[in-house]
């Protein structure tokens, strides 16, 4: 047995003992250097291989490789175990209070009335209605006359009007309505005329927007409010089509089982005119203060477009016909969310707005 073999065996035993005893990755690194490095002990021993008799050389060489592999294996294993232990220790030290609050991210809110108007747009879009818009600062001609509401007609009482002042008259202390008949539109109906004049039949549009009325403010009235107007003009749309559409709309908005009532109404710009009710959402139809004991709530007005309005829009009423309807999204939003005061809609009360995630 050559000395070299003995030295290798003792290196193996000594190294294993020291590797087992190593307590840190640094120590292991130092050991790797000392034992297996380029100028380490194993290399030093191998340098003696030349002095070993030739016939023994393969066996000793094999032994040397075996020792190297073994020590490398042990070293890696020890290193991995130590890394795990280090990581465990670090993780243990890093524990946090999982009950602590999160870092807040702000979430924005959309206005509930505008969200309801979006839902109406989507609903009517499914029936082929497109959106058409018109100005809020209107003329009496469009707001009234072209809609078959002549001056000093009693039906004007249905729309108390805010008049734009003649320029300079307010400043002069003598406010008077503008001579050119400019007013704030009292409804979205003037957009019917604008749509008829701008589009070719078949016309199927909804016309959402802000309206203004000379109206004292209380929990259910405001001087600014929203409306969504609808208009269909073609050659053969009938009152039965209007009824079918309104019933579908009521079901879409208030549920498949909602009771509906299609009854005569009055608007100068429709003939026949329609009022459309749904069963009271508060009492279910038994009668309560919310529905004035009638069991019904009126949600929109409608009718077949008046021949004179068709003419004003540029159509021959002997050929073209259609229907129009108007809805109050403010009131519909109040019903949707059980809101008791319409004044909350105009203003910036974040206690109110932030109740409606994504506005819905």
């Amino acid at each position, binding site marked *: 047995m050559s000395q070299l073999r003995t030295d290798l065996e003792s290196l193996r035993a000594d190294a294993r003992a020291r590797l087992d005893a190593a307590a840190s990755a640094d120590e292991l690194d130092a050991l790797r250097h000392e034992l297996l490095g380029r100028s380490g002990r194993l290399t030093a021993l191998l340098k003696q291989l030349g002095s070993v008799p030739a016939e023994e050389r393969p066996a000793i060489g094999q032994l040397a490789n075996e020792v190297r592999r073994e020590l490398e294996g042990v070293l890696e294993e020890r290193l991995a175990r130590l890394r795990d232990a280090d990581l465990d220790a670090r993780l243990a030290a890093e524990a946090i209070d999982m009950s602590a609050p999160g870092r807040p991210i702000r979430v924005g809110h959309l206005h509930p009335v*505008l969200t309801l108007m979006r839902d109406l747009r989507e609903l009517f879009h499914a029936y082929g209605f497109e959106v058409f818009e018109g100005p809020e600062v209107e003329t009496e001609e469009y707001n009234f006359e072209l809609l078959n509401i002549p001056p000093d007609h*009693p039906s004007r009482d249905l729309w108390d009007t805010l008049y734009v002042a003649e320029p300079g008259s307010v400043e002069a202390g003598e406010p008077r309505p503008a001579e050119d008949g400019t007013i704030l539109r009292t409804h979205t109906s003037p957009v019917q005329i604008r749509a008829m004049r701008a589009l070719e039949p078949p016309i199927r549009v909804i016309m959402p927007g802000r309206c203004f009325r000379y109206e004292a403010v209380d929990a259910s009235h405001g001087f600014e409010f929203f409306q969504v107007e609808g208009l269909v003009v*073609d050659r053969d749309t009938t009152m039965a089509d209007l009824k079918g*559409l309104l019933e579908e709309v009521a079901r879409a908005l208030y549920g498949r089982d909602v009771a509906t*009532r299609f009854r005569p109404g009055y608007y100068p710009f429709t003939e*026949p005119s329609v009022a459309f009710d749904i069963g009271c959402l508060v009492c279910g139809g038994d009668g309560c203060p919310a529905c004035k*004991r009638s069991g019904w709530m009126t949600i929109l007005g409608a009718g077949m477009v008046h021949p004179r309005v068709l003419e004003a829009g540029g159509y021959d009423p002997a050929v073209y016909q259609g229907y129009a309807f108007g809805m109050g999204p403010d009131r519909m939003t109040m019903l949707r969310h059980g809101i008791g005061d319409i004044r909350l809609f105009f*203003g*910036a009360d974040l206690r109110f707005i932030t109740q409606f995630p994504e506005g819905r």
Partner: protein
Amino acid sequence: MRVPLSWLREYVDVTLSPRELTAELTMRGMEVSDVEIGGEGWQNVVVGRVLHVERHPNADTLWLTRVDVGPAGGELEIVCGAQNLEVGQLVPAALPGAVLPGDRRIERSKIRGVVSNGMLCSAVELGLGPDADGIHVLGHHDELPVGQPLGEAIGEVVLDVDVKPNRGDALSMVGLAREIAAFTGAELRVPEPQTVEGDVAVEDRVSVRIEDPELCPRFTALWFDDVANGPSPDWMQQRLVAAGMRPISAVVDVTNYVMHELGQPQHAYDADAIPGGEIVVRRARAGERLETIDHVDRALDERMLVIADRERPIGLAGIMGGASTEVSESTKRVILESAIFHGPTIRNTARRLGLRSEASMRHEKGIGPDLPRLAAYRAAQLIQQITGATLAAGIVDNDPGPHPARRVSVSVSRMERLLGLPLDAGRVRQLLEPLEFGVMGDGDELEISVPSHRLDVALEADVAEEVARAHGYERIAGRLPRAELPPYRTDPSEPRNRVRRVLAGIGLDEVVTHALFDPDDLDRTGYDGSAQHLIRLSNPLSEAHSVLRPVMAPSLLSSLAENARRRRPDAWLFEVGKVYWMHDGPPTPRERASETAGTGRYEAWELGIALNGRPVPVTAGAAVEPADVATLKGIVDALHDALGAPRPEYRAEEPDTRHPHRHPGRAGVITDAQGRPYGSLGEVHPRVAEAWGLPGRPVDATIDLHRLLELVPQRIEARPIPSAQPVDRDLAVVLDETTPVGELLRVTRMSAGPMLTELTLFDVYRGEQIGEGKVSYALSMRFQPDEAGDEKAVEKALNKVRGSLRHHLGAEIR
């Protein structure tokens, strides 16, 4: 219109319950908006009989009564203060535990030492009328059973019917009864007045001259002698009160009664106050005045129609009579007017004088041509009956008729097509005849004769509505939407809605504020509330809502202030709304893109953003900073990113165009790559913030939405995914501190070319090493070469950047 059911029943038999009648009328277009069931406010009030009355032992003005209140209560002692008590009377007795209108509760109580077991009620206590003086006596014999609940005994059901403006004919008991008769098949009973005429000829007493026949197509007059005008009978007073009128005197009450019964407004004049009985119907003359019966002296003008004597106006036609000819209890001779006036003129006059009455309302809606004469004789009958007056022979009437019925030609097939209902001539006849229409013809083309009271039916569509109403709207079979679809159009509101959704996603809350605001709010915000371009109202509800907003800033600041007042100073919010202005002359480019009705007034959509304080509460472990201008820019940039629009550039506002509500050193414009502004932003001027009561340092931005949305690409073209790795380079640049950093970014971006995909300013340094008046900026750039290993191209681009910065900005590159 208030319709007492007992009065209505005089003209038609109603077998429906009040609830059924309400539903039926509503379904026929006579919407019943409320039903008042008389006696609903009475609990435990019964008919009692006074058995005994004696002085209260301890009070001179009180009485102690014994009252039989029927089997349930027996005989009760009740203390009473009224002076009209008599033994044997039937009276309303409120028992202990009773509730009266106004939620007044009656209990057993001691009055001056004597126990009173309830209360005897006056009319006012029962809510039946204004009379508070005495007990409301129900009868003296056996008119009502003693012990019967009072509601059952005398409770009146009153319908509140919302008669539409086109149905003036239904503004009366007979008018409504006619509708009910038509749809129930019951018989209609129209009064057929019987009068006795005296010897005097009316022509010898009254003459009427109509100067403007267009404003007064019909005027009838009757003459009465020997009028004994006192109070009208109880039955008439009760009906008038139930209908909402105040009883005055027999003659006046009769005119009101007939107006409610038949729909014809009338006026009675004290004939002795009209010299020679000469009546002139004419326009008022400039400068004329009239004291109306409400004792208000009114200035008249030529647009108003008056009734005059030889010289002076004695009444406002169709609206209110004059004080000088008012009928009183001493009136002996009366002229009774039943006329038709021009509705629009009456309406206009009534509105301008603020004097709308039951009469003017009916004139506005129109009176059928056959009504004045019927109503005149009906009133004559009642006046004779009640006052014993003598009616002069004959009637003054400028247009006695006959008035031929209006004819409307209709096509059955066109009405079918309009209504979506199967029809034929027989069915049309069956539906219209009960409503008193005549139907002539049997084929497709029919002639419809319209009853004289139906002024609203003139066109085929009007006849179609009557057909639908008679058929029943509820029986029209609804059909699902069908028919050809219009061509697709883009939704003009959708881009605005994208903006709203993005901002809510970024964490802002949406507000909607009034477009009408206070000119003072402009002044408070640093703008001129008296500026010429403001759109003002001539009849604002209040000064607080008298101008349309020309800018968003006051709305935004008021929104922040509203929340600050509620101890919510931290608010990040936005509004998408319109601004409005007036401009004479050729429209500016912005005005050409705005909405307008063509009157020199314009309205345009604008986005306003206002931030104050922190977005979220200060939280342990989180760095939550209050919003500043940089936060606002970050939001504006993010909005552009989310819309796919190129990010804007920012530069300081020029002093002469600076928005007056902003901090002069912290106000900027938002521009496109060509430097064209389309918005502005900055910190709110501390004085403006203080004026609004805003704590902290609020910032705001406003953006022309039309211009912003124009920057959004119509189509997004996908770029190929590069095979090469990006190359990152940093650059340190020293500039004069007077050079805006925006210039550094702009020049860098422009000179680097399309390979530069990201550019970040990651450090700013001032210090001695850099030198006085100098700033060092550190930029990090990411280049995306086309091909792997194309570092040369990157270096070339970088060199170009260095060169441009040196050349254009005098930069020192380190």
